[in-house]
């Protein structure tokens, strides 16, 4: 059986190594913000016959709406068309123009977000993340201790950076559902961390004589390991099923959740608990030093 805490430097290095490419990408190219935050129109269209992307592009261009447009295939007959925010008349014209050029089609969905609304949604998303994080620290401080709250939040930061980093690297479009996924990941990752902290809390109460903090935390992690793995597995079953079978609308949401839940399980064991040990050791060292000084 290996020692989770003694090897903690290795885990820290792994964690930093996996988030660094994402952080660089976030600085270099940022996130691919969807219309939820930038404003714009998305139309998802299903043609009765299979279509070539270039034909769809030609048809869209021929309608003569100014501004940039992007066309993305999402199935052999399905296309996503992104434009600036169109009013009803313009989007009707666009859909009609496509049908005139390319034959009958079904309008699967249209999303329109005005530029003002986009800014509001972005603001609300950041606010939600901030409020949730603060509430977490408060809750953990009340039920456990402040240092554990800090350790848990650092682990959370790791999870959110990993997910946003991967989304930035792959330039997957980010929408309000992504923010909901991040929030759920936060709740979920904290959940994992807390189960371990709960065991540490209990073991501290009945601490064996001469047991070091490292040993105690290591023992707690081992005691909760089966649960940590089993829980991640059961949630993964559901997420994988939804990702592969749940249809296109919910795919990005599920992808973010999959990465986040896996990362959350990892960071609870390999980051949050060892970090707390380090924070604790730092505290004792300081105390010893100040005792020596006086």
């Amino acid at each position: 059986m290996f020692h989770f805490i003694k090897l903690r430097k290795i885990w820290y290095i792994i964690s930093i190594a996996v988030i660094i490419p994402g952080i660089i990408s976030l600085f270099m190219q940022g996130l691919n913000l969807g219309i939820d935050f930038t404003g714009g129109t998305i139309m998802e269209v299903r043609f009765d016959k299979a279509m070539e992307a270039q034909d769809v592009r030609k048809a869209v261009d021929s309608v003569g709406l100014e501004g940039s447009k992007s066309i993305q295939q999402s199935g052999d007959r399905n296309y996503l068309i992104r434009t600036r925010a169109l009013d009803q008349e313009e989007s009707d014209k666009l859909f009609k123009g496509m049908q005139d050029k390319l034959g009958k089609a079904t309008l699967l969905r249209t999303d329109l977000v005005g530029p003002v609304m986009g800014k509001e949604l972005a603001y609300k998303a950041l606010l939600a993340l901030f409020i949730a994080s603060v509430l977490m620290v408060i809750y953990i401080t009340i039920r456990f201790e402040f240092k554990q709250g800090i350790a848990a939040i650092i682990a959370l930061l790791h999870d959110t950076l990993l997910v946003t980093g991967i989304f930035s690297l792959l330039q997957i479009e980010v929408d309000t559902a992504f923010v909901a996924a991040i929030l759920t990941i936060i709740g979920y990752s904290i959940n994992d961390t807390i189960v371990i902290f709960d065991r540490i809390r209990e073991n501290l109460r009945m601490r064996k004589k001469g047991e070091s903090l490292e040993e105690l935390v290591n023992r707690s992690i081992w005691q909760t390991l089966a649960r940590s793995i089993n829980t991640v597995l059961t949630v993964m079953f559901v997420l994988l099923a939804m990702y592969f079978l749940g249809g296109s609308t919910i795919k990005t949401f599920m992808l973010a959740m999959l990465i986040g839940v896996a990362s959350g399980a990892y960071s609870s064991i390999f980051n949050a608990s060892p970090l707390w040990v380090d924070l604790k050791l730092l505290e004792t060292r300081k105390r010893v030093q100040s005792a020596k000084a006086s």
Partner: protein
Amino acid sequence: MKWSKVLSLLLIIVLVAAAAVVSVAPVFEQNKTLSKYLPLIKDINLGLDLQGGVHVVFEAHDTPEAKVTPESMQQLKAIIENRVNGLGVSEPIIQLQGDRRLIVELAGIKDPEEAVRTIAKTAYLQFITEDGKTVVTGADLKDAREGKDPNTGQTEVNLTFTPAGTKKFADATAANVQKRIAIVLDNQLLQNPVVNEPIPNGKAVINGYASLDEAHKIAMLLRSGALPVKVTVEEKRSVGPALGADSLAKSQHAGLVGIVAILVFMLVYYRLPGLVANFALIIYSIIVLGVYLGMHVTMTLPGIAGFLLSLGIAVDANVIIFERVKEELRTGKTLRSAIDAGFKRGFTAVFDANATTLITAIVLYFLGTGPIRGFAVTLTIGILASMFTAITMTRWLLQLVAGANITKNPKYFGA
């Protein structure tokens, strides 16, 4: 074996199985009264992303003619309500948000785009004389009905003016005999007839519609009146019925696969307690279904995801507790006391862990929009129900199984 406990166990199994079957399977299709309520699952409201529909946020703007005031917003809401009712949508949501926004949500309509076009029409009707004077407006209308001309069979819209409107119209027609009066709707010329003689009875007819449907729509718009302020669509999420049905079928399929995977895993890994947990999971699902119905929860696609995730959380509560029971068994405790100790010790972890997820779900509910809120709702219900079933149902069932003495071998309890 203790037969009384075995019997009560069997009874519970039969009851739960029956409840589960009537919840999801259409077994009483023949029986008219029962099939009205059963299976329960069909009474759950589907959100617009699952049956097609549209979510629109209108924003009112100040214009020189009309400033946005609380009164004009109320008036706007009333008019839009009228128009939505004309569309025949069941349970529409129409609410004001802030000072100048109106949210409209319509689920289960065939053509969501057409619905937006209709409800967002300004519907400003004017009768304009040749010298460009507006003599009568939509505000002077008492009623507008579609119909067919009995002589020609042409589709038409019959207008009736209010008493004041009747007078205005009579004066205007008297002053403009042998001249044209244009009928203009939203700055579009509908007709430009010549006035043959003064019309004192306060009735007018607009004709030239292709179908009775079209005439019905115009009549409905005219009846509901013109929008009192200028509105724009700030946000629109429309889902066609094809995509809605597709999403529903796919997520049901995915959910089923996910659930079966969980059930199999629990059974293989935890054996007898796993079986009990699976059984508790079925009870949990029935309880959650009941809460959805009782609270009139609207099920959205993210809502289904939230429900499935809450299944994971419900299983997790059991996993935490079972792992604990196993540990207690290893210290040499009897089955009974190990179960008690396991639940007692496991619960603080379950509680604290769920509390944090609950916090994020609540934040999401208050700051999320549209279908995302559905996710927050099902997740919240799920967390609360899972805590309840884990500490009451599973515990009680596990004790019952242990007490029934079907097996004494702790191996079956995973030790």
